C-alpha cells in the first residue's frame, strides 16, 4: 500500500473548533501522525453539533467528526503545572505544533514560541488566530465572524446596499486561514534544513483574506485614487448577466459575458427576439440595461428547473450553473463517480458519511484514514510511549 505523502511528520494539535483542527486534518489525512491535545471536557466542537436527531453527544458532533479525521486524541489539563509539563514533553520531539488559542492564553500558559523553541529548536509552530500574534488587535477577543468582517470582504462583496454586509454562512475566515497555514506550515517543515531550523508561522485569518482576496483586487486602486466600491447585491455590476436568479425549483447562477456565451444563452432560451436588440449585444451595455434584461431572463428561468437550465446552457457553452443545495451537491453523480463522499465506521456514531480528500495525489493518496477519535482515546498509547521515551 502506498504511504501517505506526509508519513513520518509528527504533529501536535492544540486546537478548538475549526481553524487549527482543519489545518491539522489536512496533515493527518495525508499521512502525518497528528496527536490532538484536548482539554478534559474536549474540543468545544464536540458540544456544538450538528448531532444525529439533534441529540447532543460529545462523540457524535458532525463538526468534530468532519474536522478531526485520521487523528489521535489525548486529554490534558493545561491549567495545571503537571499538564503543562506533560505538554512540553510532547513538544520535545515533534515536528510541528498547530494551535489556535488567543495569544494571551498561550502566554498565560507559558507556551509561547520562544519557550517551546528553547526545548525543540526544530519546532515549526503554526498559530492560526483571527488577528495574528502581533498588531493592536492581536489583544482582542475574537472569532471567525469578527475576523471575516474586518477584511472588507463583506462590505465590498456580499449583501444588498443599505443592509448588513454578509459572510458566507460558514466559517469562511477560519477555513481560509487554516488553508494558508497548511501551505506555509508544510513549507516550513519541508524546508526546515534549508531555512536553518524551525520557526513560528503566524497566520491571521483576517489578514490572509484582507491581503489576497480583498487587497489583491482593490488595494492598488484605493492607494492610487482613494476610490473604492461597495457591495451591490448583484453578482457583477460592470458586466451582465452575472448574478443569481430564481428558477422553478430554486436558483441558478446566470453568467454570460462573452458574445459566444450570449448566443449560447439565446439558443438555450429558444432564441427570443429581445436578445437580438442592440442594447444587449455586449456585456457592458447589458449591465447598463440590467433592469430591463434580468426580468426577461427570469421569465424563462421560472419556467424551468435548475438542473435542466444548467444542462442546457452548459451544452451550449454557457457557464451557467445550478445553485446546489447542500444535499444536491452531496448526492451529485459527479462527486459519487469521483468517490468524494466516503463512509466511515465510528465506534459510537456508527456509520457516518464524510467528505473525502480535497485533492488527489495518485502516487501517495490521502483522505480520511480513520474516523475522528473518541475523547482521550489514545491517552494510554501516547502517554505510555512518552513515559518510555523519557526513561
Amino acid at each position, binding site marked *: 500500500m502506498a504511504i501517505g505523502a*506526509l508519513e513520518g511528520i509528527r504533529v501536535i494539535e492544540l486546537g478548538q473548533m475549526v481553524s487549527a483542527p482543519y489545518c491539522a486534518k489536512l496533515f493527518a489525512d495525508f499521512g502525518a501522525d497528528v496527536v490532538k491535545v484536548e482539554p478534559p471536557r474536549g474540543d468545544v466542537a464536540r458540544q456544538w453539533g450538528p448531532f444525529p436527531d439533534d441529540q447532543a453527544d460529545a462523540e457524535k458532533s458532525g*463538526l468534530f467528526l*468532519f*474536522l478531526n479525521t485520521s487523528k489521535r486524541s489525548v486529554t490534558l489539563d493545561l491549567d495545571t503545572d503537571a499538564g503543562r509539563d506533560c505538554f512540553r514533553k510532547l513538544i520535545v520531539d515533534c515536528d510541528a505544533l498547530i494551535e489556535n488559542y488567543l495569544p494571551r492564553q498561550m502566554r498565560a500558559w507559558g507556551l509561547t514560541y520562544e519557550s517551546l523553541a528553547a526545548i525543540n529548536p526544530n519546532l515549526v509552530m503554526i498559530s492560526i488566530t483571527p488577528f495574528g500574534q502581533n*498588531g493592536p488587535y492581536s489583544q482582542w477577543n*475574537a*472569532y*471567525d465572524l*469578527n475576523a*471575516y*468582517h474586518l477584511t*472588507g470582504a463583506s*462590505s465590498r*462583496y456580499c449583501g444588498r446596499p443599505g443592509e*448588513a*454586509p*454578509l459572510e458566507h454562512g*460558514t466559517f469562511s475566515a477560519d477555513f481560509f486561514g487554516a*488553508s494558508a497555514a*497548511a501551505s*506555509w506550515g*508544510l*513549507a516550513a517543515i519541508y*524546508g526546515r534544513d534549508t531555512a*536553518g531550523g524551525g520557526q513560528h*508561522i503566524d497566520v*491571521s485569518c483576517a*489578514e*490572509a483574506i484582507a*491581503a489576497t*482576496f480583498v*487587497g489583491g483586487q*482593490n488595494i*492598488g*486602486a484605493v*492607494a*492610487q485614487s482613494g476610490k473604492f466600491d*461597495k457591495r451591490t*447585491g448583484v*453578482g457583477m455590476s460592470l458586466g451582465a448577466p452575472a448574478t443569481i436568479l430564481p428558477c422553478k425549483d430554486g436558483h441558478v447562477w446566470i*453568467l454570460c459575458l462573452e458574445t459566444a456565451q450570449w448566443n449560447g444563452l439565446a439558443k438555450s432560451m429558444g432564441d427570443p427576439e429581445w436578445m437580438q436588440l442592440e442594447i444587449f449585444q455586449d456585456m457592458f451595455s447589458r449591465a447598463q440595461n440590467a433592469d430591463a434584461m434580468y426580468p426577461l431572463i427570469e421569465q424563462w428561468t421560472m419556467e424551468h428547473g435548475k438542473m435542466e437550465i444548467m444542462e442546457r446552457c452548459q451544452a451550449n457553452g454557457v457557464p451557467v*450553473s445550478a*445553485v*446546489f*443545495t*447542500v444535499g444536491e*451537491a*452531496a448526492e*451529485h453523480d459527479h*462527486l459519487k*463517480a*469521483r468517490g*468524494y463522499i466516503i463512509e466511515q465506521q465510528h465506534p459510537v456514531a456508527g456509520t*457516518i*458519511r464524510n467528505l*473525502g480528500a480535497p*485533492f488527489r*495525489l*495518485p502516487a*501517495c493518496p490521502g483522505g480520511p484514514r480513520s474516523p475522528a477519535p473518541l475523547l482521550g482515546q489514545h491517552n494510554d498509547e501516547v502517554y505510555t510511549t512518552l513515559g518510555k521515551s523519557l526513561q
Partner: protein
Amino acid sequence: MAKNLPLKGIRVANFGWVWAGPVTGQTLAFLGAEVFKIESRARIDLTRTLPPFGDGIPGPDRSLSNHACWAGNGSVTLNLKKAEAQQLARDLVARCDVVVENFGPGVMEQLGCGYESLRAVKPDIVMFSMPAAGLDGPLKGVRTYGLSLTSLTGLDSLTGYTDGPPVPVENAYSDPYNGILGAFPIIAALRHRDRSGEGQHIDYSQQEAIMHMVGPAFMDYAMNGRNAQPKSNGHPLGAAAPHGVFPCAGDDRWISIAVLTDDEWSHLKRAMGDPAWAARPEYAKAGGRVAATAEIHEQLAAWTAQYDDRGLTQLLQGAGVAAAPVLNVGDLLDDPHYKARGTYIEVTHPLGFRETIYGAYVKTSRTQAAVEPGPVMGRDNERVFKEILGLDADRYDALVAAEIIY
C-alpha cells in the same frame, strides 16, 4: 546555518492564468521558489487589461489589481500556439521541479504540455492541475467562473439573509483560496518525490476543495437530511446568539459581535448597562438566547446604532466581548492593525510608477519573504532562455523576431 526561504532551490513553471493559478505561483514564490509564469502577448491575460492602471496610463504592464495578485511570479513570454514555443516550454519544464496550471482538462495536452509529454522530459515532475471540478467525472468539462464555481459546492446556498434567497458573493473567493491551498499538495508531492524518486500529476478539484468549507452543513445533511439555508450572519451551526453584524452611527458603518459563551453574554449585558430587556433568565443560557435570536438582535441593534464602530469596539473589547468594526475597502490601508503588520506595501514598479500590493500574507519568524512588484511581461526571458536553457544570443534574437518568444 544559512537562513534561506524554505523552498529555495525549487523551480516552478506556472502556466496558470487569471487568478487561482497565479496565486499558487505567488505563494510558492513567497516561500522561496523560483517561479516563471508562462504567458504571451499573442493572448494577453484578461487580468492584465483590468483598470485601474499605474498612474492612470493603460497598458498590460500597468494593471494594479493584476500586479497585486501576480507579484512574486516571474514572467516568461512564449506563444504556445506555435510548436517551437511548446518545445521551449517543455525544455524549461525539464529543468523545473513543479508545473502549475489551471486550464480546463485537456488544454495542456493541446498545448503539447500534457502530463505524459512533460513526464517524458522530466520523469519526476510534480504537475499540479486545478480544473473547476477535477480531471475526471461527469462534470469534468463544466464551465464556470470563480464567481459561480461555489454554486456547485452548496456554499452559495448558505449565503444570504435569513429566510431570503441566496445572495451572490461578487468576486471569486475560491480563486485566492484555492491558489493558496494549492501549495499544500504541491509541497506534499515534493516531499514524496524526495523520498521515493517518484513524481505525479496532482488532481486538484476546486469544487471539492471549496466543499470542505461546507463540511459543517454537509454533516447536518448527512446525519439529518437537512439542507441549510441562508441565515444572515448568524452562527453557522445555530449554536450561539447574539451573533451578527449590527448597525453603528454613520453611513454604512457596522460592528460584528459574536457571543459564544454564557460568560461573554454576561460581559455584553454589563457593557450595555444591564438593560431590562436583557435580564430575562432564559437568556442566561445559549439555548434560550438562540431561541430568542430575533428579539435579542433587534434590541442589540437599537443599542449599537448609538455608537461609532471603533468606539463601541473598544468598549466591548474592554468588557471581554468579541467585537470588531466591519471595515470598508477604504478603511484597510489606514487601519492600525494592518499597518502594524505590514499587510500592504508600496513598491516601485520597473516602469517607474509606485504601486501598493500585499506582502507576505502569513508572517514567518526565521526567514521573511521578499516582496516584488507585479511582473513585467517577459521579465525573465533572458534568464530562462539564455542562462537556464543556454540559447545563444543569435538564436534568442531569432526566436523573438519570429514571435515565438512573444
